């Protein structure tokens, strides 16, 4: 590295002149790199899409079908390719689902742009036309959409299962889809019906069992054991729960201190004092009636010692230690209690109440469940089970996508057909629209329309169908006015996809189109790559 920097100043004297003739080459190289990224994830689109196995630098193996995750782990270096990775990330943030679709659309658009560029159309003209086409596309999609009521649980479940069907865990979609819907609906605040904070849904993963055992817990789940030292209780009915942020251990001051022991008898005294000190704290806790303690992890000193655990067990107080500081907010919100940062403030009104706290053995580990919480906050916990870590991780990602889908529906209450139907309809309508436009614009919009056919084409291809036959058939059906005709991958034919219950939120489709266009326009406008400090 040092050699490289040392060599830099000398060579740059002659290299400061950059030949601008390479503009075209740069643009082509960018488009090619971006398309290579798009091609990498293309095969994982749709319900019959394939998974990718990624082995990361530290030897970890991930199997996934989620576009955002694949791209995130692919360490691309080329700047334009990086932009596609970012694109999928933003789709993840905006809609949570359709992360593969957005990249595939961008790839197809770039392919068409390359053609237009070789025809000698100025990049800014293409860019402007793409923008127009995408605004029009959003209008078309909105016109196609079906409004939805939140009370319509069936439709919500349908769209969640559409999202889940393309994942590894698709066979469990009947279980996971209602689960996703219920968990999102349970955290919707009636005061702000459009807002869903997914952080109010906690996902706990536990190895063992199968995905079938995944469950929604009305309450809290800790992926931890209750403390077993000295035979403390592991099951507590009518629990009074305290979340504490202080430590039950011998005192430690912030300034450095040392205890000077000058003779043997003092040692005994110190040991006794330590015991008394801890006992005093525990008595205070006991007097408030608290019988379950959640103790925040401490980096400065031991949160609990063997001695204090022993006394707590004697006092019949159940202890769960090493709770992360980040989780405290979620826990206090759920339990409807306040964290206690000092023993002096340990008062009964700060406690949370639950009908039952118990330790349950699951597979090879144990978890602690808190159920029957009094005045529970608007939170919910999902416990994911699976036979191996890879499945669990993938199930978590899939569930996250499904949750996002439901969230999209909560914030924008429109549904649209899936299975390639909206894309082919867009392609048809934009194609017709391009004919009334003048000049280059019409030409570019037509290319945009053609690019959108990539989604049904890829869906069919991944499902092992004949893509050309399927896409032409689809076009035909749409031309006859069946705007909801789409690919039914299970039957391997074209049906009215709305009747097949394959639906997705409008927001996913619209944001995929607008984000992909925005990214493509950005790539088009680049004519040089400059190396800088």
């Amino acid at each position, binding site marked *: 590295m*040092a*050699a490289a920097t*040392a060599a830099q*100043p000398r060579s*740059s*004297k002659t290299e*400061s*002149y*950059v030949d*601008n003739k390479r*503009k075209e080459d740069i643009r082509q190289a*960018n488009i090619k790199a971006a398309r290579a990224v798009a091609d990498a994830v293309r095969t994982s689109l749709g319900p019959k899409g394939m998974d990718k196995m990624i082995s990361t630098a530290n030897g970890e193996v991930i199997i996934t079908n989620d576009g955002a995750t694949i791209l995130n782990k692919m360490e691309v*270096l080329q*700047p334009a390719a990086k*932009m596609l990775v*970012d*694109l999928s990330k*933003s789709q993840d*943030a*905006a809609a949570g689902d359709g992360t593969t679709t957005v990249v595939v659309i961008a790839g197809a658009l770039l392919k068409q742009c390359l053609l237009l560029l070789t025809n000698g159309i*100025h990049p*800014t003209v293409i860019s*402007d036309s793409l923008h127009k086409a995408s605004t029009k596309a959003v209008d078309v999609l909105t016109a196609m959409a079906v409004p939805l009521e939140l009370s319509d649980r069936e439709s919500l479940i349908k769209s969640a299962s559409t999202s889940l069907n393309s994942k590894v865990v698709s066979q469990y979609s009947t279980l996971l889809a209602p689960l996703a819907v219920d968990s999102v609906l349970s955290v919707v605040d009636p005061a702000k019906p459009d807002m869903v*904070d997914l952080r109010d849904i906690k996902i706990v993963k536990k190895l063992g069992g199968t995905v079938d055992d995944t469950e929604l817990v009305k309450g809290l789940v800790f992926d931890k054991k209750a403390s077993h030292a000295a035979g403390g209780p592991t099951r507590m009915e009518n629990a009074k729960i305290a979340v504490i*942020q202080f430590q039950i251990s*011998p*005192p*430690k*001051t*912030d*300034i*450095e*201190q040392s*205890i*000077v*022991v000058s003779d043997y008898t*003092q040692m005994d005294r110190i040991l006794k*004092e*330590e015991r008394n*000190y801890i006992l005093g704290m525990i008595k205070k806790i006991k007097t408030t009636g608290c019988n379950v303690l959640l103790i*925040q992890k401490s980096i400065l000193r031991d949160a609990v010692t063997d001695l204090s655990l022993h006394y707590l067990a004697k006092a019949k107080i159940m202890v769960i230690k090493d709770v992360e500081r980040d989780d405290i907010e979620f826990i206090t919100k759920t339990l409807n209690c*306040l*964290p*206690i*940062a000092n023993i002096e*403030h340990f008062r009964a009104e700060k406690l949370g109440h639950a009908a039952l706290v118990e330790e349950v053995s699951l597979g090879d580990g144990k978890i602690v469940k808190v159920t029957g919480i009094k005045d529970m906050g608007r939170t919910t916990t999902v416990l994911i089970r699976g036979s191996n870590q890879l499945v669990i991780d993938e199930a978590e990602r899939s569930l996250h996508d499904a949750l996002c889908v439901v969230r999209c529906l909560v914030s924008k209450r429109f549904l649209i057909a899936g299975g390639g139907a909206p894309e082919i309809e867009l392609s048809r309508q934009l194609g017709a629209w391009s004919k009334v436009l003048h000049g280059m614009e019409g030409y570019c919009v037509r290319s945009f329309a053609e690019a959108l056919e990539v989604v049904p084409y890829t869906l069919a291809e991944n499902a092992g169908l004949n893509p050309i036959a399927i896409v032409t058939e689809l076009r035909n059906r749409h031309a006859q006015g069946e705007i909801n005709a789409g690919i039914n991958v299970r039957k391997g034919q074209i049906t009215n996809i709305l009747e097949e219950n394959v639906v997705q939120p409008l927001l996913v489709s619209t*944001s995929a189109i*607008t*984000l992909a266009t*925005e*990214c493509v326009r*950005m790539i088009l406008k*680049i*004519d*040089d*790559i*400059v*190396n*800088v*400090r």
Partner: protein
Amino acid sequence: MAIEKILKDDASEEKGERARMASFVGAIAITDLVKTTLGPKGMDKILQSTGRGHGVTVTNDGATILKSLHIDNPAAKVLIDISKVQDDEVGDGTTSVVVLAGELLREAEKLVAAKIHPMTIISGYRMAAECARNALLQRVVDNKENAEKFKSDLMKIAMTTLSSKILSQDKEHFAQLAVDAVMRLKGSTNLEAIQIIKKPGGSLMDSFLDEGFILDKKIGLGQPKRIENAKILVANTAMDTDKVKIYGARVRVDSMSKVAEIEGAEKEKMREKVQKIIAHGINCFVNRQLIYNFPEELFADAGVLAIEHADFDGIERLALVTGGEIASTFDNPESVKIGHCKLIEEIMIGEDKLIHFSGVEMGQACTIVLRGASHHVLDEAERSLHDALCVLSQTVNDTRVLLGGGWPEMVMAKEVDELARKTPGKKSHAIEAFSRALVAIPTIIADNAGLDSADLVAQLRAAHHKEGCNAGIDVISGSVGDMAELGISESFKVKQAVLLSATEAAEMILRVDEIITCAPRQREDRM
């Protein structure tokens, strides 16, 4: 005996022709690099960092490109400096200034080749610049008196500035945002009061202007999420522990209970501190440093909203807009200035929760929340918006306005041409060259848009032969159009700064006849 070495090892010297040549080549290379970004159809560049992380920036902003370049050529560095100065002074026209300087040098190179002394060229350029400035002064429009018209001028300027940037598609939306934000400033050029927050997700159209201040932080546990008529104390103080900051200080005790006592005393100290803070009669406490669990709980008990770990920028701005002062000791409540605002509440943008202070003391303050597909888009949008804000705030002070689209350059070129005809002597060649350099700007704008520049510029020149013509290049339709009708305007201050600093830079480089490169400092090879 010939003197063998005057300079140190590795130091080099370039003289006369060679030195001048090196300057020209360097300056022209820089110009060529940025000139494709000029104008509404200018292209963007990817800046790929060679440092760690290989960060990528996509930008159209001349100043940003130039300041991140590796440059070794001294003349090129001069150009980068003027672009920086332009950025600091007026905020926009950073590309134009470099391109104009580069074109002036390109013309000068030809003149030098034709054996005209650099000093003659310089004095010609000076005359020409003066004449060009006067030409512009005669044609400026000043709508200071008419508020309605002035506002529309501002809108036009904002749109013109934004049209060459990534925000061009939504330029009306953003122009409105920028004008609203600048109008709130009421004439001050303190852009600090305008806060820009970037949040990925959504599209650019979802960006909005919010009156008030937004802090990207969370409210502490168990504290009120909404406060009306807030009294805010902004502080930079340690809320973990008040430590004795003497190195090696330690306490010796002889029993456990003493330790417990000390711990109790420490807690007590913290409690006192919190009490003191609360005694200021506040209901919102913002600290730059961490607030530990214990004081957080105390604040929660007192019903005070406490925000920890606000970044430095955040608290300074918060103090500014709420009219408070950053405090670090709390013994004299009278001497601490407390900020006020009407309402504090938690809002949600995208997936994140933020804290919103509305109805702040300083009415000028506002926040622009940018939304966009990715970080690249957001960063570039911020730069573009910043340019627009700078130009607008300058225009509010200097209300003179010009038309855009190559119009000012053509006006200047025409006057300068006239001058050339009147001036006797070699200088007239230099003055003519100046006019050619000015015409290069509309030429480049047309070239970047993929138009036939030779044809368009000739048409434009012909159109400008008439008195009081408003013709400029209409890039959208690819023809010569009336700039007043199309609503393309630029700030006079920006144009003037471009003209003057470009001329000065060119002059400076022309004067050089020797480049001495000092010996690089020897560095030990660290591997």
